[in-house]
């Protein structure tokens, strides 16, 4: 005989899970009782939302589903923002929640929350387990669903009595059999030929790289395709890091906060190949502007993304990696020199903003300096707000990763995501940047950082305000600044030190550069507080 809880742990072991992030409670205690006898490492977070973000950072760095665990009711509802964040960025995540005893379901008993219902609109799929004998099948399906096709979060809600239920034996299914789920990975040959034809006629072609390229691990294919054809690349925020900023084929980030020359290239192009990009309103604020005369080829593993936000001429459903390879084989096109020169000239004419100053840290030039100092394969996490935009536009991701909450825009994401990423890739340098607003949404994770000993460096851009909203109020609300001043913030250096984490504060570029160098060379976690001009704009 074997209990549901033991089965759950066994399933995780078979799936190769090494680390889970969680927070216990009575309703998940049977599971924890077995988890702690397993080799799986458990990271005790300080609030459940961070468990989901940490699992998300882990997943994105490791390329396998991240796992987070919470108890029923408030534990489960605290996970919600983290699950929704993962959903919007297509991160493979398994969220395991305890639930009240089955016979009490639906009666609003102590710590009951209908979590599968609450998460309906931002999980890829969810399960409320009614019988322990179903657990192996459900776990098999959950991992399969989370990590294939367009990845996403899957929730498994397990009532306490199901965790305690004894069943005769355990066997893990070889394959998930889900009649309605068969993601298509190979692009349709006819569509690929059509795209190749359209490319051959293009005078001003452009590749637009989204987060799907990162998820598909199609970096090499993307760059090779661009180099072979000479077609320049722009990227969305989620596509950052696929092509290094200084690569000759790369023009920059598009969108509301993007590089002007990249946006102009989108506007000027007569053919755009959208690769794994959902064309969100932040990336293309007015799809009409682009789609009038421009031919659009849209490649995505999720058919529902194609044509959702932009009219598409040639849709290709499939894994970007496979499609780009097939497309490369179909074409011997070379982009017209005139166009290449044009976009290159525009890129060259683009003057990066920001310069050294000695009264504050200038975040844009600091980001550029920082990226020069960091390891080639470093993982860089940006939070949400001005700090994110400064990082996105100026931090050069070389062979590493740029992690941020691009879809939901969740403040407080960077620190926990960085912890997760570091635990997934202990040998890679991991640095995060936060604003003083966003940091305060997750600073309880300094304890998790201390407890795990994860070597995560934190750069805190202190402007004593909710900078991005402040900036918005300046521009669109006649300068009426309401509820955007952060008074009452702690002394962040002392705060870090209270956790036993070394910290320094700097207020000029020169100081910042030196301190960053020392920080990167130090062992273990470190907090670098950078004083930023409160009126520093992003635009």
């Amino acid at each position, binding site marked *: 005989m074997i209990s549901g809880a033991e089965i759950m742990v066994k399933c995780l072991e078979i799936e190769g899970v090494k680390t889970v992030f969680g927070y216990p409670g009575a309703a998940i205690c049977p599971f924890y009782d077995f988890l702690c006898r397993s080799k799986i490492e458990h990271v005790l977070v300080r609030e459940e939302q961070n468990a989901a973000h940490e699992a998300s950072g882990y997943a994105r760095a490791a390329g396998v589903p991240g796992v987070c665990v919470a108890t029923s009711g408030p534990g489960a509802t605290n996970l919600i923002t983290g699950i929704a964040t993962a959903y919007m960025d297509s991160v493979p995540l398994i969220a395991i929640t305890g639930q009240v005893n089955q016979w009490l379901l639906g009666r609003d008993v102590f710590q009951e929350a209908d979590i*599968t*219902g609450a998460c*309906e*609109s931002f999980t*890829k*799929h969810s399960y*409320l387990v009614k019988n322990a004998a179903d657990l192996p099948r459900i776990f098999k399906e959950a991992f399969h*669903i989370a990590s294939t096709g367009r990845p996403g979060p899957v929730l498994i809600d397990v009532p306490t009595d199901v965790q305690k239920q004894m069943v005769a034996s355990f066997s893990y299914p070889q394959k998930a*059999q*889900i*009649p*309605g*789920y068969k993601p298509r990975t190979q692009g349709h040959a006819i569509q690929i030929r059509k795209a190749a034809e359209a490319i051959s006629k293009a005078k001003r072609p452009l590749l637009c790289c989204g987060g799907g390229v990162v998820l598909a691990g199609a970096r090499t294919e993307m760059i090779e395709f661009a180099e072979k054809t000479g077609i320049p690349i722009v990227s969305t925020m989620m596509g950052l890091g696929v092509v290094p900023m200084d690569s000759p084929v790369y023009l920059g980030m598009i969108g509301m906060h993007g590089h002007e020359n990249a946006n102009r290239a989108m506007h000027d192009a007569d053919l755009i190949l959208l690769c794994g990009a959902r064309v969100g309103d932040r990336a293309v604020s007015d799809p009409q502007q682009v789609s009038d005369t421009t031919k659009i080829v849209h490649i995505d593993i*999720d*058919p*529902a993304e*194609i*044509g*959702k936000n932009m009219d598409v001429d040639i849709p290709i459903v499939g894994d970007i990696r496979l499609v780009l390879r097939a497309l490369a084989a179909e074409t011997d096109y070379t982009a017209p020199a005139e166009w290449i020169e044009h976009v290159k000239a525009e890129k060259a004419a683009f003057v990066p903003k920001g310069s050294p100053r000695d009264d504050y840290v200038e975040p844009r030039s600091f980001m550029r300096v920082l990226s020069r100092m960091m390891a080639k394969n470093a993982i860089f996490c940006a939070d949400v707000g001005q700090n994110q935009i400064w990082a996105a536009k100026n931090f050069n991701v070389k062979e590493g990763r740029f992690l941020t909450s691009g879809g939901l825009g969740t403040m407080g994401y960077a620190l926990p995501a960085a912890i997760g990423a570091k635990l997934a890739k202990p040998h890679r340098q991991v640095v995060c940047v936060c604003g003083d607003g966003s940091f305060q949404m997750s600073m309880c994770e300094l304890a998790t950082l201390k407890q795990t000993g994860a070597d995560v460096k934190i750069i805190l851009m202190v402007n004593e305000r909710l900078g991005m909203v402040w900036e918005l109020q300046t521009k669109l609300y006649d300068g009426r600044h309401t509820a955007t001043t952060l008074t009452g913030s702690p002394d962040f250096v002392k705060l870090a030190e209270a956790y036993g984490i070394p910290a320094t504060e700097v207020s000029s570029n020169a100081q910042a550069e030196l301190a960053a160098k020392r920080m990167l060379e130090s062992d273990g976690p470190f907090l670098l507080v950078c004083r930023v001009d409160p009126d520093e704009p992003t635009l």
Partner: protein
Amino acid sequence: MKHTLSVLVENQPGVLSKVAGLFSRRGFNIDSLAVGVTQDADISRMTIVVDGDEHIVEQVEKQLNKLIPVIKVKVLEPGMFLSSEHALIKVTCRAKQHAEIMNIAELLHASIVDVSPASLTLEITGSEDRLNTLIGLLKPYGIKEVVRSGALAIEKGASTALKQNAKA
């Protein structure tokens, strides 16, 4: 413009809420939705009538397909399927009006399924148009209650939505 979708789903708890939730969340308009089990007890069919342009229907189809328990979605081609709906209609009427109403019922192939001193209840199965016509004709008498099933649809000829799919 109305479009009829035939959707095969796994017969599991929660499927209906997943499907209905998708419509409200994404702002699609459901005209009607009817559900029942198929010849395979593990599979249910939903017939969904959606109001919207081509773009909306395409999105509805794609988004439905993303739901894991959805096995197959087919947008039925106009003219290529039979559609029928069932309704129960309770009308207020005095005894001397019975004959008139029975005439109307006969005209539209509806039947009288319940009679009381102050009411008649009619049952009708047929196209949406026929149901609307009947309801229109009965209106002057005073309709107390209408219960409609929502449209059911099936393809003409030998083709089925289930054809190349299902339980692999």
